């Protein structure tokens, strides 16, 4: 068996695929560009959520959106190593000291991999309890985990809020989630001397930096999310 998929929350699936090279080489924040088969012509970017170097399996957590993810969510469908491909993009930096992880929705996925590689605490936000993902994994990998939901059905009610967090213990903040949340992180942390790294999203074609379709506006002009990112130093982004 080269892959296995199961539903873990409302409309959200966990895929484990046998891709030993990727498992060995991937860094937190990097993504795979997956050939989903079926009628999806372009590959689909999914962040590496976790790896097991021993078994050679790589985990992805994804939301069912359209043609590509529908194919991946089909439990009859086996995905091969070439379909998964190699580790792409620039991930989170290695930092000395503790890291605060801020994840919104599916944005929690790459942060779990980061939590495995550094000392971290997490603040996670979801639409509601049914859409919450990876909380047991984060609890095992992190010191503290704070959960927020928009409707208060799990954890605290409201959007991700850092007011109760002692930021002085951290060397950096890693954030991934909807753009509005990332912009909010930039605002919340603007006065702190804390480097903030954000993972950006843009629609892709090649996934390896050659075609220039996936750009986002940065202070250096248009940068490629797939090659110069997806992780950028927040100050470099034109929000």
């Amino acid at each position, binding site marked *: 068996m080269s892959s296995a998929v199961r539903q873990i929350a409302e409309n959200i699936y966990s895929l484990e695929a046998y891709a030993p090279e990727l498992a060995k080489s991937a860094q937190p924040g990097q993504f795979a560009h997956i*050939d989903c088969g079926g*009628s*999806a*012509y*372009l*590959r689909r970017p999914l962040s590496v959520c976790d790896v097991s170097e021993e078994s050679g399996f790589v985990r992805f957590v994804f939301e069912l959106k359209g043609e590509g993810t529908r194919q991946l969510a089909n439990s009859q469908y086996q995905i091969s190593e070439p379909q998964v491909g190699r580790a792409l993009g620039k991930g989170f930096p290695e930092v000395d000291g503790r890291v605060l992880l801020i994840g919104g929705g599916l944005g929690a996925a790459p942060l779990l991999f980061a939590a495995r590689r550094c000392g971290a605490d997490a603040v996670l936000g979801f639409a509601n309890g049914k859409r919450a993902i990876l909380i047991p994994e984060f609890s095992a990998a992190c010191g503290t985990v704070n959960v927020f939901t928009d409707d208060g059905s799990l954890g605290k009610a409201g959007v991700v809020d850092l007011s109760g967090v002692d930021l002085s213990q951290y060397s950096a903040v890693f954030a991934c989630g909807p753009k509005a949340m990332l912009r909010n992180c930039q605002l919340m942390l603007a006065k702190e001397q804390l480097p903030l790294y954000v993972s950006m999203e*843009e*629609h*892709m*074609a*090649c*996934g*390896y*930096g*050659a*075609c*220039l*379709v*996936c*750009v*986002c506006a940065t202070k250096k*002009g*248009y940068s490629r999310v797939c*090659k110069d990112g997806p992780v950028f130093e927040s100050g470099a982004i034109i929000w």
Partner: protein
Amino acid sequence: MVSFAGINFKNRVTLASGTCGFGREIAELYDLSRLGGICTKGVTLLPRLGNLPPRVAETPAGMLNSVGLQNPGVEAFVRDELPFLRGFDTKIIANFSGESPEEFAKIAAILVEGGVDMLEVNISCPNLHAGGTAFGTDPVASFEVTYAVKEAAKGVPVMVKLTPNVTDIAAIAVACEKAGADALSLINTLLGMRIDLKTGKPILANVTGGLSGPAVFPVALRCVWQVARAVKLPIMGLGGISDVDTAREMLLAGATMLSIGTAQFRNPLIPLEIIDGLGE
């Protein structure tokens, strides 16, 4: 060895302009010296930022792009990118476009001075003197651009890249031949659009974009067939080639050289598989 417009290529396969940047990202995957040639990302006289994102929309068996010729400008290309490409034993075909015949000639002169093997003239871009319609949709404008570039090229072969967004592609091909082109490449992308049903708005920020990939292959094949029967110039065929079979069809339609674009986005090694599959 394949002789094309007076140049000896080691095989028939090149990478299509705009789908391989300036080769650096592909060089991380394999030795560029294995390729017949590389058609580099289109450059313009001055740097261009390109269009607002989103710049890509998926389509059945293909995609639309609206990159908008984002590039660092011809001077930066010659200074920062060409020396790297020159480190490989492959032919460098420099793709470029301008806003007037004079500007095309000026860019061609800089590229020739810089030392490229061949010029690929992208006439699918808007002609500012003609209200923004593409040079390549008008035989007279196509003639003028080709003529101006040929004069500036100092003997470096000039390949004109044709757009399929025309009523009679053979007429444009004939105009380019009369103006002194050494070869033709075709096709560039087909103009298209998509609308996001959730928002009711076009997916591309630029509204329209160029269609490429397997979806355009039958159109490309038809264009190459028609042009091959209208001119004596050698043809580089492209548009939707995605495997050895489609490569063979393109050769049968009348192409001598091939260029692989969008198919790389699914499998970046496909150009090498096609080289091996053609047995060259």
